[in-house]
């Protein structure tokens, strides 16, 4: 991100999203829940409809022209996702349902066959349950030790204990996110990746929250696996991607078994197909994968640098406005080190009540533990409110949020 980055025009982009044409209780929609799931632009929806109406058949098996078109749509999307992540090869992109499935694939396939007693499985206190629970499970199943890296008071990873940790066992697996879904912390994972690799470990990166908002480059990050979810980045739900180093993917057993993922099947044995087919059993979410490719086109058309800058500006504006609301406590790092996510609590009003009152004002936020119970325990709260922003978010939505918070306070005064 540089000052020269062309700013995006959120008001103009907003016109691509039909969802904003409606009102709730006579109030405009303030959709501040994009970290939960993003809205979809017409460009993606129309392209998917056209794909269904002109090019839909099953992929990889139909020999007629329609089947070839559908296959080209799916594989074209794979190429786009590979370029989007700067993956060395599209064969390393495995289409899955979402980041959760991608992370489970790695935990079940790589984890259960590579972990054992004496090994360390390291997660962070900032992980979403999807990059926490599968590793807790894999460690329990294999007898490996499960360890959690703590956060400092700023909501950033505390890496001061790594040397000591390395003396406790073989550093085999490190699971870390690029951007925290709960606090919005942008994690500088480079030192952690270096440490893991120095000890021969593998790094699994959850980029579900990062990929919609910033450029994600698997080669620059130097991680070994990386997961994204389409629905958080203007794409449809039901599609996500796992990127993995081909040498690791080659050595792993399949996760799900069935059609398409085989090379040859006899009564005695089955040999598995090449990458990525080995990990894509059954009929793929074809149109959804195509839609994800269109979402990548849309994001690149807007510009990831411009999106990142826009969100930083909104986060700074939100922090400034929230500071003026009495009794509001904001969690997480300063605006320059966070993505467009702001978690907060209102003194005396439970997040569910805040969210309910805001809902009546047309303001959508998330209230709860954000699938981060270990982090909530660290913060000493059961839940928080979370407002999150995207390329279509405008300042008036944040103003609407602040007005709603004043109302919540007055109801509970």
């Amino acid at each position, binding site marked *: 991100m540089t000052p020269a980055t062309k700013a995006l025009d959120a008001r103009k982009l907003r016109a691509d999203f039909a969802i904003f044409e409606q009102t709730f209780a006579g109030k405009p929609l303030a959709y501040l829940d994009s970290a939960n799931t993003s809205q979809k632009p017409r460009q993606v929806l129309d392209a998917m409809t056209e794909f269904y109406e002109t090019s839909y058949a099953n992929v990889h098996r139909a020999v007629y022209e329609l089947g070839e078109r559908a296959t080209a749509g799916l594989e074209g999307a794979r190429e786009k996702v590979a370029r989007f992540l700067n993956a060395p090869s599209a064969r390393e992109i495995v289409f899955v349902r979402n980041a959760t499935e991608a992370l489970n694939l790695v935990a079940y396939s790589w984890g259960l066959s590579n972990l054992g007693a004496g090994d360390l499985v390291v997660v962070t206190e900032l992980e979403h349950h999807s990059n926490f629970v599968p590793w807790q499970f894999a460690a329990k199943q294999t007898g490996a030790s499960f360890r959690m890296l703590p956060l400092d008071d700023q909501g950033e990873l505390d890496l001061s204990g790594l040397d000591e940790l390395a003396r406790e066992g073989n550093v085999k697996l490190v699971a870390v996110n690029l951007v925290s879904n709960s606090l919005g912390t942008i994690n500088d994972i480079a030192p952690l990746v270096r440490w893991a690799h120095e000890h021969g470990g593998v790094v699994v990166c959850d980029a579900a929250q990062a990929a919609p908002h910033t450029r994600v480059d698997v080669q620059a990050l130097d991680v070994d696996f990386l997961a994204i979810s389409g629905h958080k980045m203007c794409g449809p739900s039901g599609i996500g991607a796992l990127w993995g180093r081909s040498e690791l993917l080659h050595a792993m057993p399949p996760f799900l078994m069935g059609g398409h993922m085989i090379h040859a099947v006899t009564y005695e044995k089955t040999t598995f197909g090449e990458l990525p087919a080995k990990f894509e059993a059954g009929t793929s979410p074809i149109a959804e994968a195509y839609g994800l490719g269109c979402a990548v086109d849309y994001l690149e058309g807007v510009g990831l640098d411009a999106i990142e800058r826009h969100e930083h500006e909104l986060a700074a504006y939100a922090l400034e406005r929230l500071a003026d609301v009495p009794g509001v406590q904001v969690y997480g790092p300063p605006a320059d080190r966070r993505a467009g996510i702001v978690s907060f609590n209102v003194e005396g009003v439970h997040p569910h*009540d805040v969210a309910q009152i805001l809902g*009546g004002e047309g303001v959508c936020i998330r209230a709860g533990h954000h699938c981060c119970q270990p982090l909530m325990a660290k913060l000493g709260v*059961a839940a928080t409110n979370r407002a999150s922003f995207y390329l279509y978010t405008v300042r008036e939505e944040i103003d609407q949020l602040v007005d709603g918070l004043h109302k919540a306070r007055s109801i509970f005064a």
Partner: protein
Amino acid sequence: MTDESFYREIILDHYKNPRGHGVLADADAEAEGKNPLCGDEVSIYVAFGEDGETIDEVKFAGRGCAISQAATSMLTEMVQGRSATEVAELDKDELLEEIGIPLTPIRLKCAVLGLTTLKVALHKAKGTPLPEGLAGLDELDLT
């Protein structure tokens, strides 16, 4: 429905001044309930009368949204002096009528958390089987 009527006076009153708030050290029945969706937590303590059946005293401790805490507060007043066997099978509509506001499915879970927890406590104390829907509430235990 406006939020002013949703958070009607009686709800806010029970939330701010919960009845029966506290812990019974020598409870005859107790249970802890959680609503993982929003992090509501309620612990319920019951003391029986000399007949071992009448609910003599109910206390609750917990934290959570206004609906969960106010509903549990109302519940403690509602079941006082009633028979444990009857309350263990209490129809949730009786409580919902008392709460008196329309609840979405998500908020319904908040509203019945205290009642569900109380039922678990009473069934455990009586040694009666948990009704369908309440069984299997054990946490996934990976230890």
